[in-house]
């Protein structure tokens, strides 16, 4: 083997960025460690890709973790068919740009029975089109480990979830019987049919995510940045009004204003915020003085306290 051949093979990205601050560097190192450990210990991992900002960071970290190799597992997107149009466009661009194996799954039953967030209520809709669909996709792929972008600061039950979150063969999470997790030594031993959800971003906060996106220049769906957009006010939320499937109720009217989204999910269930933050710097500045949490815009979290824990027990991410 000639050394010059080896040298030419490592082509570093042409971009030269200032080094990360020690805080973000520590979080990045931890996430890369988790990615490599899971990839080494499990036979058939997959990465859940929701197209949002956390997924974008997760994907960036995966590319870093395995460089100069390729990301050694597919990305799975559970498509409820009710995502923002811009999300789907962005997803396909990214998959092509980074040469990723993308698996897209939609719950056929839900589609055939025409289960929509408008007709069936957010709880039932989420159960069928997200939780059930996810389980179908995981079973179909035979995945024994699934990366997710969940963070412990998002919600109370997540604060207690392990980095390797053990799941039964029917994908259930038992919060009272979690494996102890000491140091950075992860127990990846499972029996056939069981699986692990792995969360490399467990220790990141929302501000960390944004600062990292800025430092690493990670592309995002434009909906995160404020722009003049049409919307409808419904149940105290501002819903984006550009999809023809959104039918106006009596008394509702389409308004226009400068809005953006702090999280992205299914458009009928995701509320926008009024904002003029049209670039990263402004978004971060806005975030640092924000007085409400990001999940406040998610209808599915509102049903009752502990609703996330309940969904997670049943297999939701």
């Amino acid at each position, binding site marked *: *083997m*000639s*050394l010059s051949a*080896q040298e030419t*093979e*490592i082509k*570093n*990205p042409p971009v*030269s*960025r200032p080094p990360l*601050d*020690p*805080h973000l560097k*520590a979080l*990045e190192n931890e996430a*890369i*460690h988790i990615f*490599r*450990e899971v990839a*080494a210990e499990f036979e058939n991992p997959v990465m859940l890709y929701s197209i949002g900002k956390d997924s974008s960071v997760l994907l960036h970290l995966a*590319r*870093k*973790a*395995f*460089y*100069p*190799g*390729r990301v050694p597992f597919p990305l799975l997107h559970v498509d409820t068919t009710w995502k923002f149009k811009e999300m789907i466009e962005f997803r396909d661009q990214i998959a092509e740009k980074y040469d990723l194996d993308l698996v897209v799954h939609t719950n056929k039953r839900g589609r055939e029975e025409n289960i929509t967030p408008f007709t069936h209520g957010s709880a039932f809709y989420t159960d069928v089109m997200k939780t059930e669909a996810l389980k179908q996709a995981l079973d179909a792929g035979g995945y024994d480990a699934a990366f997710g972008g969940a963070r*412990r*600061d998002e919600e*109370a*039950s*997540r*604060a*207690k979830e392990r980095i390797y979150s053990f799941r039964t063969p029917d994908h259930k999470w038992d*919060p*009272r019987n*979690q*494996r*102890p*997790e*000491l*140091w*950075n*030594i992860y*127990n990846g*031993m*499972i029996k056939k049919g069981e699986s692990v959800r792995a969360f490399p971003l*467990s*220790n990141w*906060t929302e501000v*960390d995510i944004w600062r990292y996106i800025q430092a690493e220049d990670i592309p995002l769906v434009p909906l995160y940045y404020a722009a003049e957009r049409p919307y409808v006010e419904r149940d105290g939320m501002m819903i984006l009004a550009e999809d023809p499937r959104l039918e106006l109720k009596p008394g509702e009217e389409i308004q226009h204003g400068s809005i953006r989204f702090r999280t992205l999910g299914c458009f009928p269930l995701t509320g926008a915020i009024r904002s003029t933050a049209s670039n990263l710097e402004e978004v971060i500045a806005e975030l640092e003085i*924000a007085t*409400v*949490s990001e999940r*406040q815009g998610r209808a599915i979290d509102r049903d009752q*306290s*502990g609703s996330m*824990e*309940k969904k997670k027990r049943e297999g939701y991410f």
Partner: protein
Amino acid sequence: MSATATANAASANVIPFAESAARVSRDTRPLRLITCGSVDDGKSTLIGRLLWDTKAVKEDQAATLARDSGAQNDLGLPDFALLLDGLQAEREQGITIDVAYRYFSTDRRSFIVADTPGHEQYTRNMVTGASTADLAILLADARAGLLEQTRRHATIAALMGIRQFVLAVNKIDLVGYDKAVFEKISHEFREFALALGVRQITAIPMSALKGENVVLSGASGMPWYEGPTLIEALELATSRSTQAGGFRLPVQRVVRPGESFRGYQGTVAGGSIKPGDSVAILPSGTVANVKQIVTFDLVRNAAVAGDAITLVLDRQVDVARGDLIVSIDGQPMTGTSFDAQLVALQPGGLEPGKRYWLKSGSRRQRVVIEPISQLDLQTGQWKPHASVLSMNAIGKVHLSFEEQAVFDPYEQNRATGAFILIDPDTLNTVAGGMVTARRGDLGGIHRGRDGEQRVVLSLPADLAEQLMASDLFASRRDETEIRRMTSAEAAELFSDAGSDI
């Protein structure tokens, strides 16, 4: 000792403020800490107060709290305990049953808090939280003084390698901000902590409920206290670093994107490395030189502890996941027999003689444990003749491996000295452990780190079994240790034991 003298002694270990301010700006890694105490000490209120006053709790979360509790305390604040106890079972029972991680930050630094329950039955949860912590906050109720529980928490925290303590003397308002009460408790605690080998101790009088000396100053009620608030003490604490020792890279995976490139991926677990350095691959002992340190961003000219890197060597050598790449100088201990301390984490406890999986770094191998003694958490003393270690027990054990194992002493390197045990039947994590020393592989006199001496005998398995079953041996276990060994194994050991004999 007069009250003044005590006060001076109490502040002697407080880090001088201006002096350490410069250090903060250089080291802004997140500080990981653990809070030890019970609901009675006001632990939930304290963490809630930290989150609240650093604005880590948002309005909608507070509104959810208010809706759930339907009540606020007399200061108009939400019930912080509900904020912290995230699981339904915890809310229903009003207790904390698991480790929860909380995040908050100031302008100077960010913090990760492992919030763990206080009761002895949850020792395993505390051990989990302590395993990654740089600092422990120990809570004491000013009215109750230093309790058994606080001593137990301090003992466990020290055992897990935490070398910075903050004693939060809470509810100081309920004793009329009495300086003498604070000094008595902090003096007593300091003596205890020093005996555990912990020298960085900061004692702070506070009222978590009223927010005095937590994030905001408590000077109006306690003009006599001149030390830092809790948040100031945390901002000035040091994050753990293992950059001083020898280079350690547990190999997580080998990356081969093309025929000509072969890299070893892992997180540097100690020391530093640069191209040109000579390294050894353990346990094989093969030697090579570092050719390149590759990361996504650039080919680097150095990497230090904590960095996730890809290492390229200058020659083709046999390196696999589980191997440890180390500096030629200052190598770790290699052998098949080690001393360790461990904590049993599951209801079934730990069985002597059972073959467990041991995972350390990226390496997993079979091990048999033999309990030697158990820590009495009431007295802090080690009791000999422990046969079984039940859940929450902390024990000293011997580890016997079938193949070569590689460790550093935990007190020198937390990453390469720590391990977990996995039950081969349930595949659950059943213990967390810390290696203290290597034991000689062959017979002779063994001297442990704590000065204990034993005669070690290696015998064929059937003889060993008979002798170990005898009453005579049982009464002399402190002096003698017996290992099972076939004559073929003995011959092999003699041939390559080298310095061990």
